[in-house]
C-alpha cells in the first residue's frame, strides 16, 4: 500500500504554519505601527562643522553650563542635589562628564542651540512655560562646536563607555531599572539600617514627584522592557519618540548609534540576563536531541523489521 | 424479602445522611470563596466634588475600579440637555453637573480612553464609544457607563453608599 505519511505530515505542517503566520507575524504587523530606523542620522538637523579649540570650549562651558550642570571628571560639582534640582527644573540636569561620547555630536550642538527643538518637545513648551534649559542660539556656531569639542575631550573613549554608563546618562534620570537596583538618583546603596534605606526611598519618591509633574506621568521602570517591547521598538522610540507616540512628553535624547547599542545591551542585562547561557545551552540541547531522534529512528527500524 | 427491603431502605437513609454532610461542606466551601469582610469594608470612597475643573476628565479609584469624573462644561451640558437619557445620568452637586461613573466599558470591562478633542470616550478593546455624559454611542457595549452607588453629602460624594439620588437612577433604569 502507498505510504501516505509524507502527505499527512505535509497537511499538518501546512495548517500549522498558516495558523502561526496569521496569529503571529501577520496579526502583529496589523496591530503595531512599523517604524523604520533612520540609522541615528538625525537628518532634520543641519550639518555640523567640528572645530578643535578645546580651551575656548572649556571657557564657554565653565561660564555657561556649570551653574546648573556638574562635570565630575573636572571636579566641578553640581550646585544643588538631584532632588532639589528636579524640584526646581522638573528633572535633574545631567552630569556632563560623558556627554561628548553619549550623544551624537551634531545633535549635541543643535541641542545647545535650541533644546526644545532638538528634543522634539516644542509642543510642551511656550513663552510662559519655557524649556528648563535656555537656548544658546545667540552663540556663534563655532563657539557651540568648540564646547562640543571640549565635552568630547573630557569624555571617556567610546570603547570604554560601558552599557550601564550609556544607560545612566541617556535614560537613567527619568527611568528606574529596579532589577539593576537603579533609581533615578543612582544605584541604590546597601544600607545597614532600615531607616536609612527608607530615607533614600523617600528621596527617590520626592524626585519622582517632580518628574511626574514635569512629564505628565512617571516614566516607566524599564527592567523588563527588552521583553515587553523589543530591541527594534526601543531603538526607534529613542531615536525619535514622536514617530511612535505622537505628542509624547518623552524627549528625543539624541544618542549616537553606538550608545544605543549599549543601552540595549544594558536593558538585556536587566531583563534577559541569561541570554548567553540560553544560546549556549540551546546549541548543546539541539545537538543532543537530534542524536536522540536518530537513535529513536534506528530502534524503531529494528523493531519493525519483522512486522512487514 | 422483608429483610432485603429493610436493607435497601437503610442504604438509602445512609445515603441521605451522607448527602446532608456533603451539602453542608459544599456550603462551607462556597462561603470560603466569598469576598472577605476586609475587602468589602474597603468599599467606600469619598470624593470632594469642589476640586474638579470643568471639562477636565479625572480618574479616581473605588473598589479597585477606575471612576471617571468629568465636570460638565457649558457646552457639554447644553448637548446633554438635548437628550433626556444624557441629562438624567449627570450627578448634580452644589449646582454643578458631573458625569461620575465606573470607567469600565460595559462590554467586557476594558478602560475606555477620554478623547479631549471630541469630548468622548473610546474603548480600545472592541471599539465601543461613549459621549461626555457616559451614554453609549457605538456598540458592542450594551449600555452607558455604570454609575456606582453614591450618596451626596454637602459638596462631597460617598461612593459605595446608597443615597436617594442614586436609588432614583436605579429605579429609572439609568444604571444597574
Amino acid at each position, binding site marked *: *500500500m502507498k505510504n501516505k*505519511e509524507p502527505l*499527512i*505530515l505535509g497537511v*499538518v505542517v501546512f495548517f500549522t504554519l*498558516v*495558523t502561526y503566520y496569521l*496569529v*503571529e507575524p*501577520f*496579526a502583529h504587523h*496589523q*496591530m503595531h505601527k512599523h517604524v523604520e530606523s533612520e540609522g541615528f542620522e538625525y537628518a532634520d538637523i543641519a550639518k555640523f562643522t567640528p572645530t578643535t579649540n578645546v580651551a575656548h570650549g572649556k571657557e564657554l562651558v565653565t561660564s555657561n553650563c556649570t551653574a546648573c550642570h556638574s562635570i565630575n571628571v573636572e571636579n566641578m560639582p553640581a550646585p544643588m542635589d538631584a532632588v532639589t534640582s528636579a524640584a526646581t527644573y522638573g528633572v535633574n540636569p545631567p552630569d556632563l562628564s560623558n556627554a561628548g561620547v553619549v550623544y551624537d555630536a551634531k545633535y549635541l550642538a543643535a541641542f545647545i542651540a535650541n533644546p526644545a527643538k532638538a528634543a522634539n518637545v516644542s509642543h510642551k513648551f511656550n513663552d510662559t512655560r519655557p524649556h528648563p534649559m535656555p537656548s544658546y542660539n545667540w552663540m556663534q556656531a563655532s563657539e557651540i562646536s568648540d564646547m562640543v569639542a571640549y565635552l568630547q575631550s573630557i569624555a571617556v573613549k567610546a570603547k570604554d563607555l560601558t552599557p550601564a554608563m550609556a544607560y545612566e546618562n541617556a535614560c537613567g534620570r527619568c527611568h528606574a531599572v529596579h*532589577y539593576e537596583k537603579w533609581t533615578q538618583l543612582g544605584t541604590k546603596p546597601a544600607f545597614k539600617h532600615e531607616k536609612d534605606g527608607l530615607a533614600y526611598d523617600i528621596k527617590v519618591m520626592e524626585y519622582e514627584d517632580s518628574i511626574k509633574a514635569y512629564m505628565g506621568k512617571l516614566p516607566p521602570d524599564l*527592567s*523588563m522592557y527588552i521583553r*515587553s517591547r523589543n530591541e527594534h521598538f526601543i531603538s526607534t522610540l529613542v531615536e525619535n519618540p514622536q514617530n511612535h507616540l505622537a505628542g509624547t512628553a518623552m524627549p528625543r535624547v539624541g544618542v549616537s548609534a553606538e550608545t544605543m547599542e549599549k543601552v540595549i545591551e544594558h536593558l538585556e542585562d536587566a*531583563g534577559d*540576563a*541569561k541570554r548567553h*547561557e*540560553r*544560546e549556549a*545551552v*540551546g546549541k548543546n*540541547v*539541539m545537538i543532543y*536531541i537530534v542524536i*536522540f*531522534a*536518530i*537513535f*529513536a*529512528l534506528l*530502534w*524503531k527500524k*529494528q*523493531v519493525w523489521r*519483522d*512486522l512487514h | 424479602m422483608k429483610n432485603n427491603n429493610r436493607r435497601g431502605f437503610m442504604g438509602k437513609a445512609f445515603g441521605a445522611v451522607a448527602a446532608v454532610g456533603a451539602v453542608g461542606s459544599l456550603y462551607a466551601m*462556597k462561603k470560603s*470563596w*466569598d*469576598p*472577605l469582610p476586609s*475587602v468589602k469594608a474597603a468599599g467606600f470612597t469619598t470624593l470632594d466634588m469642589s476640586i474638579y475643573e470643568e471639562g477636565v476628565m479625572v480618574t479616581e*479609584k473605588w473598589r*479597585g*475600579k*477606575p471612576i471617571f469624573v468629568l465636570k460638565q462644561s457649558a457646552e457639554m451640558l447644553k448637548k446633554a440637555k438635548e437628550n433626556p437619557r444624557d441629562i438624567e445620568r449627570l450627578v448634580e452637586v452644589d449646582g454643578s453637573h458631573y458625569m461620575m461613573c465606573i470607567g469600565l466599558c460595559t462590554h467586557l*470591562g*476594558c*478602560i475606555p480612553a477620554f478623547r479631549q478633542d471630541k469630548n468622548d470616550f473610546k474603548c*480600545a*478593546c*472592541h*471599539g465601543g464609544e461613549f459621549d461626555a455624559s457616559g451614554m453609549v454611542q457605538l456598540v*458592542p457595549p*450594551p449600555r452607558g457607563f455604570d454609575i456606582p452607588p453614591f450618596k451626596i453629602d454637602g459638596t462631597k460624594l460617598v461612593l459605595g453608599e446608597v443615597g436617594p439620588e442614586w436609588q432614583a437612577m436605579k429605579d429609572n433604569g439609568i444604571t*444597574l
Partner: protein
Amino acid sequence: MAHFTKATSVKDWFNQRLAVEKVEKVMMSEYWIPKNINFLWAMGMVLVITFAMLLVSGIFLLMYYVPTVDGAFDSVNYTIMREVDFGWLWRHVHGVAASVVFLIIYIHMFTGIYYGSYKKGREMIWISGMLLFVAFSAEAFSGYMLPWGQMSYWAGMVITNLFSGGSLHADGLVEWIRGDYVPAQAFLGRFFMLHVLLIPLAIIGLIALHFGALRIPHVNNQDGEEIDFDVESEKYLAGKKAESKVMRFANDFMAKDLMVVGIFLVFFFYLVFYNYGFAMDPVNFDPADGLKTPAHIYPEWYFLWSYEILRPFNIDLGLVLFAFAQVIFVLLPFLDRSPNSVPANRRGLFGIWFWVMIVNLIVLTAMGKLPPEGIFSTIGLVSAILFVVQWLALPFITKFEKKV
C-alpha cells in the same frame, strides 16, 4: 485468602503480590494495536511526554514562585529568570509546552474526527478526551494569571466578566469567583491553587479515564477496518508477525511512538530556545495595572477561535454562541448520525464538512487576534455564523450519508 509461596526470584515476589506479568501483558505486550495506522496515532504519546515536561518544569517553578500580587511578577521575572540556576529554562519549557500542548491536542482531536474514532464503542474515548480539553483550557487560563502581568490581569478581568451572563448581570457571581470586586489577591491565590493542585489532579484522573476508555474498543485504524483482535493476535503470537494485522503496543508501536516523540522534541526545543515569543506574550512582561488597559487584549492563540465567536455579536447572543462552541464538540458522537466509521474523505459531504470546519476554525483564530475593525469584523461575523450553521447541519448531512 490467596496462597503465597516462597518467592523464587524478585520478579516472582512481585508477581505474587502485584501480578506484574499480567499487568505487563494487559498494558504493554498484549495490548494489540492495528498495523494500518500512521504517525498521527503517536500524538497521544507526544501529549503524555509534553504533559510530563509541564509537570516537571512546573514543580521547579513552584519552588520560587510567590503567589502574591506584589511578589508574583518579580518572583517570575527576577528570581526565576535571573537568579535561580536554569530557572529560565524551566520557565521557557513550561511556557512553550503550555502552548504546544494545545497544537498537539488539536491535531489529536482532528485526527479523531477525520478517521471517525469517536463512534462504535469509542464514544467514551471522545468524551473523556473533550473533558481533558476543558481541563487543559482551565489549567492554561489559571496558569496565565500567575505571572501577574498586564495580560494576566486583563484576561482575568475579561474572562471572569463572562460569568455575569450578559443581561443577567450576575455581578455577585463574578465577585464570588474573584473573591473581590476586581482581580486582586484573593483572585490570584485561588487561581494559584487551581493551577498547581485541583486542576492537575483532575487532569491526571481524566488521563487515566481516557486510557481506560481506549482499552476495550482498541484504537481505530486509518482504513475504518473492523479487526478481529483475537484472531489477529493469535496469528502474531504463533510467530506470523508479518501476516498478522496487529502488533504489540510494546515494543512494536511504542518504538514508533518514541520515534515521533524524538522528531517532535527537535521541533519543541527549537521553539524553547530560539522561537519562544509566540508562547510568551510581550505585553505580559509589563506588570499588572488595573487602571490601564493594554491597547489590544486577546487570549492565547488556542482560545482565539472561541473568543471570536463571542465577539461579533451583542453580549447576550455572543455568550450563548460562546457556550454553544464550548460544548458542541463533546456532542459530536451523537450529532454524527452516519453508520460509517471511516476516513472523512470516503464519506462524501462529511469530508467537505471536515475541511471547511478546519479552515473556518483557522479563520476564526486569525480574526480573534486581529483588531475588530473593518473587513476583519465582517470576516469574523461570517465565520462565526458558518461555525454555528455547520454544527446545526451536521446531523442532516450525516443522516443521508450512504453506508460505505
